[in-house]
């Protein structure tokens, strides 16, 4: 019976999980001899205490929105896409190829093509694991992890041997033509007379991410395709009964998922770096998993969780600057704990909470 109210399911339980993750992280900080309260203060101040902080935080959040949506949509079809890291990397490649292909006159013209490039390349990278799962039953978890490693090797090869600027030692492409540079927050807010930090990398890709949030929500809960995705995600046998093709759904879900991950390239490669470098993804693919779990695969939850992790990432960088002992890997640990508590240890919190609501209902009746 549904005795646990929806708000508890969507907000309370994830919140408790988050607090648990932070508590354990605090213990780790204590262990390496630093003050967790101090650490939190520095973290928050570095992340949201200034427009510069916000600029970086939301920039990181944009990356996580794309990768989080990617994992979410696959989750709805009961597919565990761990390949976001590789798909985002190859998506970045696609974006770079588009940007470098011609001398774009204006970013508004280059942007749609870059979007297509990123999405198509990201989807293509997800296609083979998807096909193998759909046709041969090869476990998508292992194949996508392998493809992450392969993507990494592929990009190193391309950047060192093929796409490098001739005569340079640095394994990266040349700068993209000026016409592809996306306006950043400083510029956009400047049109409205609102001051903002000049150098923060937050750019219009953030708006693209928001649009994707709305789009994914509509797709999952308002369209036939979304209905079929969810039905298949709940029960493959029932889906077959209803005439839903497991092969088709697996492919479509993974292609959309890969495409969303690939869009991260628009933010990171086109919007910030403005060239293709080795490891443009920097672990955002994996953060996407934590974000999707925390956000319970709902676009609004993904948005909030992405901002949370943006805060942690930017705050973590500041923190490492101020307290060198608390290195960037701390964020990896927090991320792992979030995945652990929200994903694997979920029942540790859920069952007592549900029992509590049941007792309340019994007492009332």
């Amino acid at each position: 019976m549904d005795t646990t109210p929806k708000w508890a399911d969507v907000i309370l339980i994830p919140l408790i999980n988050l607090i648990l993750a932070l508590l354990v992280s605090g213990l780790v900080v204590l262990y390496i001899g630093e003050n967790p309260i101090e650490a939190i203060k520095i973290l928050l101040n570095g992340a949201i205490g200034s427009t510069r902080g916000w600029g970086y935080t939301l920039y990181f959040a944009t990356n996580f929105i794309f990768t989080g949506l990617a994992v979410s949509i696959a989750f709805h079809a009961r597919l565990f896409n761990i390949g976001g890291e590789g798909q985002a990397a190859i998506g970045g490649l696609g974006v770079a190829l588009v940007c470098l292909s011609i001398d774009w006159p204006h970013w508004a013209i280059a942007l749609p093509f870059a979007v297509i490039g990123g999405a198509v390349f990201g989807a293509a990278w997800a296609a083979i694991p998807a096909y193998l799962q759909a046709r041969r039953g090869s476990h998508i978890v292992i194949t996508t992890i392998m493809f992450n490693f392969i993507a990494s090797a592929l990009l190193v090869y391309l950047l060192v041997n093929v796409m490098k600027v001739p005569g340079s030692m640095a394994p990266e492409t040349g700068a993209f033509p000026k016409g592809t540079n996306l306006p950043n927050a400083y510029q956009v807010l400047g049109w409205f007379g609102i001051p903002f930090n000049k150098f923060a990398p937050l750019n219009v890709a953030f708006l693209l991410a928001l649009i994707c949030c709305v789009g994914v929500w509509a797709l999952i809960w308002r369209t036939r395709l979304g209905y079929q995705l969810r039905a298949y995600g709940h029960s493959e046998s029932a889906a077959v009964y209803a005439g839903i093709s497991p092969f088709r759904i697996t492919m479509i879900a993974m292609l959309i998922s890969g495409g969303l991950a690939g869009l991260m390239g628009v933010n990171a490669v086109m919007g910030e770096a403005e060239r293709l470098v080795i490891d443009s993804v920097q672990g955002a693919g994996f953060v996407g998993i934590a974000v999707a779990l925390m956000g319970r695969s709902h676009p609004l939850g993904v948005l909030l969780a992405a901002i949370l992790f943006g805060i942690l990432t930017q705050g973590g960088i500041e923190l490492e600057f101020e307290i060198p002992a608390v290195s960037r890997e701390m964020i990896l640990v927090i991320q792992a704990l979030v995945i652990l508590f929200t994903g694997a240890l979920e029942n540790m919190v859920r069952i007592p909470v549900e029992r509590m609501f049941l007792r309340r209902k019994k007492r009332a009746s």
Partner: protein
Amino acid sequence: MATQKTEGRPDTAALSTEPAIELVGISKAFGAVQANKDISIRVMPGTIHGIIGENGAGKSTLMSILYGFYKADAGEVFIRGKKTEIPDSQAAISAGIGMVFQHFKLVENFTVLENVVLGAESGARLMPSLTKARKLLVELAREYELNVDPDALIEDIGVGMQQRVEILKALYRQADILILDEPTGVLTPAEADHLFRILEGLKAQGKTIILITHKLREIMEVTDTVSVMRRGQMTATVKTSETSPEQLAELMVGRKVLLRVDKKPAQPGATVLKVDNLSVTDEDGVLRLKDISLSVRAGEILGIAGVAGNGQSELLNVLGGIMAGTGQIQLNGEDCDLTGKHSDGQSRRARGIAHVPEDRQRLGLIMDFTAWENTIFGYHHDPAYQKSSLFMDNNAIRAETALKMQRFDVRPPDPHLKAKSFSGGNQQKIVLAREIERNPDLLLIGQPTRGVDIGAIEFIHQQIVALRDQGKAILLVSVELDEIMSLSDRIAVMFDGHIMGERLPSETDVKELGLMMAGMGEGA
């Protein structure tokens, strides 16, 4: 014929006035549901005691408490007069209780011997254990006439033998009290009779047997005493010789129950479904349907009788577009594509075939979807459900669901509740409402009243007959012979992928059908 097992146990014959099992005031709740309420029952030794009740009456919960699976919230258990705590299965086994579950607890890729010995091995090393067990097993099998092949793999033997393995497991652990939960669901009438003979043999040896079933006929045939449960409570305990099926049914439900369906004679029209030389191979490469031919006319109910696993599921699956096959299927004179897989459910529905599947929870419904989401399940491509080319019209779907729920008396009539929150009968009504109201030319329906309480059974049977009277063709598959006999206008019996014969209900009886279900009698 006592073997070395009975030391340490009081001679049951001498204490025959003391109940083998006595439960006093047992109560158990799961969350908000009170599964057992203050149950008291006495089972005398050396008897076959039946427990009957509808689905959800609490029979299985009670037995699970007795077997140590659940802990009762209140109440006490006395075994042979002694108060006994049963915190886990090990304690139940030590107390001499053995349980044969409805769904067998066997490891499919182990041998019979390994299954019997599992958990009762005689040492850390396996081979000596197996050797010792083999000798004991052969002796036991001989003593109780339970023929098994110790080295056969479970997945290779039939359900009848599997059940014997389950009984042997209990006897191997020196059970004096045997509990059987719905044992005849997977057996032919002949195999069921064989089982009852075995049970009577065990009774003669002084064993106590508790038989849990919902089949009135079995209670009348083989039990000495019967207890009736209804909605978590024990409503009555009577001597079988002093009661009747009608009285028991009334005790089960609380009011007079119609055990036969009232229906007018059929008025069949043109042939709607024609199946010729249909063969189906399953995904393991086993031939499940062997060259079947049959036909169903408009305004007629063709009932397919047979024990589960003889090809009926495959027949429904092929017709419903879930499996592929070879041969010919014609609907209203036009061929159906048999080769496609997986997306054929759509084309079948488009042709006018509706399908109420045998397993509603695994196939017919998405348990985590709401009632309104389930109302369009399988029909989600219908343009009528679209608000625009991109988006679905969820409000319209919800409104339609509310109406359907009223028409089919689904309780509670709330479209926003998840399917898993409804009882079995109401879930089935949701599926039926969806399929019947599509106005199909052919309705496929499997096990329509499995897991459904008696009140809903009547309603569902009436709906099926009403559809028939509208001139639709209906293919009914059921393992319940009573249901087949009372609903069908024509009966076909399936065994081992073949149709053994077709009969009119008025011209046959349970015995003849039972023979055909077991593969005897003339072929098709």
